[in-house]
């Protein structure tokens, strides 16, 4: 199973880990102190970006430390690009 990550476990940032899986699903795990308030928005953004990139077969873990939307998007895109560099052949939108 290939995986890649981006971001840091620091205030205002988000650590994203993406792993390829054997299922045609996108499994999203969210860990955040503000999960009750923002988990829905985080998942919506993650699914939007993954969909734009045409990706499936992924498990995505979001460790949120209070990141704003721009950081979440940038970190996820980078993690997907890094996964692609490891052998995933799907283009990732930047």
């Amino acid at each position: 199973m290939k995986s890649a990550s981006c971001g840091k476990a620091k205030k205002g940032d988000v650590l994203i880990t993406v792993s390829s899986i054997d299922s045609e699903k996108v499994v999203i795990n969210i860990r955040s102190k503000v999960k009750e308030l923002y988990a829905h928005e985080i998942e919506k953004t993650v699914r939007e970006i993954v969909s734009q990139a045409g990706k499936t077969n992924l498990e995505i873990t979001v460790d949120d430390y209070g990141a704003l939307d721009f950081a979440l998007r940038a970190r996820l895109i980078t993690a997907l690009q890094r996964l692609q560099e490891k052998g995933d052949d799907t283009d990732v939108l930047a």
Partner: protein
Amino acid sequence: MFWRSIMYVPGNTPSMIQSSMIYGADAIVLDLEDSVEENEKDSARNLVSYALKMLDFSGTDVFVRTNSVDSKHFLKDLAAVADTCIYGIRVPKVQKAEEIIYIDQSITKIEKELGLPAGKIKFMVSIESALGVLNIKEICLASQRLIGIAFGAEDFTYDMSIKRTKEGKELAFARSVLALTARACGKIAIDCVFSDTKDSEGLKKDCETAKSFGMTGKSVIHPGQVEAVNELFSPSVQEVDQARRVIEQYEKLGCPGVFSFEGNMVDLPVLKKYQRIYELYGRDKGE
């Protein structure tokens, strides 16, 4: 276009980027170069790109410091930020006019590819080596798109194998030549950072030295330095008041070529100095 303080912001730290516009710096530089580790260049590039597209930087001019033109990152950095709200890019470690031409051509190419207005993206460069200092005139004259020259003292002293001191005597020639040449070529001249963020008196002296050389502003590495740099690169209340009164007298007399004000002769060069001061005052008032 008048930047007293230009504040560096690390390009891979979301919390610093999202608050960078609140400290009163005239401009900020989102940094993709020295503050970003080599294996994080991709993440910083994406982070800065998304920040520029999604955050509100209104009221602060934004530059992005790319990696140097001889790095594998330069064109990727440029491409990531070209179609955003940036005022321009700042390219480090420039040494020769050929690099300026390459930067200009690269920007021109990407403006065409993205359908951006020709000349939209400006650029500044940093001179950080002995060779760069010797070539400043050729560098300044190599592109109309180049708006300013900044001085990088840490790399310069490394290149010269000399110790950097707070007094900065070892930098005097380079700073003076840089400011003089930039002014002669119609470019702005931005002084190096003052690295000791806790030494406010040292910062003040360093600003006064830079100003005396003809620098138009100063790079800043900490939000706590912004207010002092803005103040020290601004005219005093008395200077602004005098400028206003001189200009009023000039207009009252029907704009003569030369006139007397409080016993002193005011001719065109002197008048221009007062007009420049008044222009800056107007900017501060948001006019």
